[in-house]
């Protein structure tokens, strides 16, 4: 018994001696593991997962949360925090700039390419080019991460210095939504040309419907979209003269990229872009022609008002952006089937200035999902994990369900299998190219945009005829050009 006890004690001691270093090693590993714990902070904008609030009329996005959970299973040392959503516009832009200035920006941010191009020289953003050459391990057979994206993602994300600081993976776009029942009752068919568009609206009007909920109060989306489309089609033959080149100007996926602000100012000074030019006046003439079919309260109607007119069956059509796709689909106020179509093409039948070119898309790679990585991630030790998480999120297998869950902003991916059919047309439209010259919203000065808009409203209300309105606009245009020359010191423009 004594011998047995001694043997057991010796065995226990031996075990203890063996286990001691093993345990110490385990503790060391755990400590190292804990030290390797990485926390990524991500600003996911519209995709930010959240619980449904009482004011929500449909389920908010949650898919990113699901992706985080799945990612954590294979990357237990990576913790991902989603920052709360900030209202877009000046409030967000101020937050974005101050966070980067203070060195407190999220590891993965979300911003428009135009803002990145304004700030890329400040050294805030990581150049993603080397990582885009590497394979995305979450996409089977992928050799280079960049290959999973549509070309527009890379071209839009490329800054003036040739580096890629941004992956604008979300597509923004617009479509005309129409009430199928009203079209059927009026005997109207979905138009593809301006002439057909006018005919369809005449039929709707004759049948007692308000054909179109055009809106001019508040944000000027509707009128800016119309004028951009009409100008791109009707000034097509003159765009190269305005730019000062001989060859044609191709459409790209970047809005207004065909003619720069400086080229536009030079054209105004030379008189090649002039409100006195009948070709310039043609979009305004067509706009007035179209206004016969608008809701009579178009001057005080805003985007939401127009949406309500459409969704409650008081207007047959409305022009809206991609962010309304889910809203229209789930809105309980809507008691009819609807469809969408693109802005119609102006043909020779409707205008002598038509070259037959189709209407451009409005939008581009400016939807949510415009990812950038903070340059400070290297210092924080979160760079590799941030890139890996981005590769994981942008893999089509993960990204497409995430987009479907949100319900709007189409994905800029080559493989869009299983994408919601409601978003499909937006992907197709943007790839055909967007408008080439911006003259209304940001093209010249904000003051000119306001003056132009005010004069146009007077023209539409019949308080000014076309020559009077154009003469006034020309005056404002000249002033805007002078202001920009003085502001930018463009001494080479006479």
């Amino acid at each position, binding site marked *: 018994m004594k011998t047995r006890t001694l043997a057991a004690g010796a065995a226990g001691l031996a075990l203890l001696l063996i286990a001691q270093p093993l345990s110490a090693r385990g503790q060391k590993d755990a400590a190292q593991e804990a030290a390797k714990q990485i926390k990524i902070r991500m600003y996911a904008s519209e995709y930010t997962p959240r619980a449904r609030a009482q004011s929500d009329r449909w389920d908010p996005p949650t898919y990113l949360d699901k992706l985080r959970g799945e990612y954590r299973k294979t990357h237990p040392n990576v913790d991902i925090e989603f920052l709360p959503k900030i209202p877009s516009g000046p409030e967000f832009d101020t937050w974005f700039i101050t966070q980067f200035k203070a060195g407190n920006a999220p590891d993965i941010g979300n911003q428009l390419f135009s803002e990145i191009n304004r700030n890329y020289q400040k050294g805030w953003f990581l150049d993603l080019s080397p990582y885009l050459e590497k394979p995305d391990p979450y996409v089977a057979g992928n050799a280079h991460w960049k290959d999973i994206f549509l070309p527009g993602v890379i071209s839009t994300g490329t800054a003036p210095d040739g580096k890629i600081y941004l992956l604008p993976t979300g597509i923004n776009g617009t479509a005309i939504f129409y009430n199928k029942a009203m079209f059927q009752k009026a005997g109207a068919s979905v138009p593809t040309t301006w002439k057909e568009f006018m005919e369809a609206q005449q039929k709707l009007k004759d049948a007692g419907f308000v054909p179109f909920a055009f809106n*001019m*109060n*508040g944000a000027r989306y509707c009128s800016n979209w119309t004028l951009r489309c009409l100008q791109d089609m009707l000034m097509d033959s003159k765009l190269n003269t305005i730019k000062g080149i001989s060859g044609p100007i191709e459409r790209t996926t970047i809005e207004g990229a065909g003619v720069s602000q400086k080229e536009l100012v030079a054209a105004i000074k030379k008189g090649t872009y002039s409100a006195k030019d009948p070709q310039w006046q043609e979009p305004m003439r067509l706009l007035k022609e179209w206004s016969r079919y608008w809701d*009579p*309260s*178009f*001057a*005080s*109607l805003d985007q939401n*008002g127009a949406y309500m*007119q459409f969704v409650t069956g*008081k207007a047959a059509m409305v022009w809206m952006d991609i962010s309304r796709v889910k809203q229209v689909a789930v809105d309980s106020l809507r008691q009819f089937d609807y469809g969408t179509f693109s802005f119609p093409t102006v043909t020779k039948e409707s205008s002598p200035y038509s070259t037959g070119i189709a209407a451009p898309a409005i939008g581009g790679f400016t939807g949510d999902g415009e990812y950038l990585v903070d340059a400070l991630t290297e210092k924080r030790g979160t760079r590799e994990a941030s890139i890996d998480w981005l590769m994981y999120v942008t893999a089509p297998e993960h990204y497409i369900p995430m987009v479907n869950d949100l319900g709007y902003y189409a994905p800029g991916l080559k493989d869009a299998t299983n994408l919601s059919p409601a978003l499909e047309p937006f992907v197709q439209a943007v790839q055909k190219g967007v408008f080439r010259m911006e003259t209304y919203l940001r093209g010249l*000065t*904000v*003051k000119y945009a*306001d003056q132009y808009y*005010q*004069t146009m*409203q*007077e023209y539409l*209300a019949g*308080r000014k005829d076309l020559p009077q309105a154009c003469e006034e606009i020309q005056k404002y245009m000249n002033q805007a050009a002078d202001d920009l020359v003085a502001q930018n010191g463009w001494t080479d423009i006479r």
Partner: protein
Amino acid sequence: MKERQAPRGLPAPMKTRRVRFASPQMVLCLIQVAPALAALAVFRYFPVLSAVWHSFFNWNGFDEGRFTGMANYGELFSDPVMGTASLNILAYVVIRVALNLVFPLLAALLIHHLGSSRAAYPYKALFTVPLVVPTMVVLLVWKFIYNPHDGILNRFLSFLGAGALARDWLGDFGTAIYAVSGLGFPWVTGIGISGFGMLLYLAALQGIPSELYDACAVDGVSGARRLFRLELPLIARQLYLVALLTVINTLQTYVPVMVLTSGGPGTASMVPGLYLYLTAFSYDRFGYACAIGVVMAAVLAALAAFQSRLNARAESAT
């Protein structure tokens, strides 16, 4: 030195000691008020002086700007938008003054002549409670009232059989400015200072000695004659005060216009306050915006002085 005598029946005035300017007591007083004076100088007077200074510059609000002398003022007087805005604000002021003088006064008279303060209390409360409703809420409600499709105003007109009068109140060139300036029915409380106007009038009416009402009753003076011969002259100060405050308040206004019409359609409802705001914050022309602000301040000061003289003259007449 002769002691100041108190009128009979009143307590003697407190003796005041003359304090020398350089005395420690004065220094202590100055130290105590210095923070408030400094805050006043930095946050009230400096911006005013800065605005006057920058009104002579082509300034975008960030850089140092370029001195342009009177150019901003020259532009202001030839700016067609400023011309339209000035006419609009004139209409706006006239309408608001009329509304703030008449309707709160009617409400005050009704409450005053209810006789019992117990009966008057619920009405007072009813007219005062809307004062706590945020202006933005009031404006959004009025945006809905004016809605051409589902708005109460057009529906009410149709109900009365006057559907032909229904229109796009805020989108019509002919009605936009009047719709904005006329909002707030029944104009007793709501936008601006009309709610306080009713309380001011009521306090003044209640301050009229009952002997005067008794004398009116003995002389058989009642109704409109009592109003014009007795009540209005005795609350003239309050009427002037409300008119003055309405003018000052309304001349600077831009929030209702911005919320309801953004100055449109065209510039049909543009007012100087909104134009100043747009010029500064949308067009980055802070120098020109300062010039607009300086002219607005000068107009306000002149009107205030004019109204004060009228007030003094009216007082001396009574």
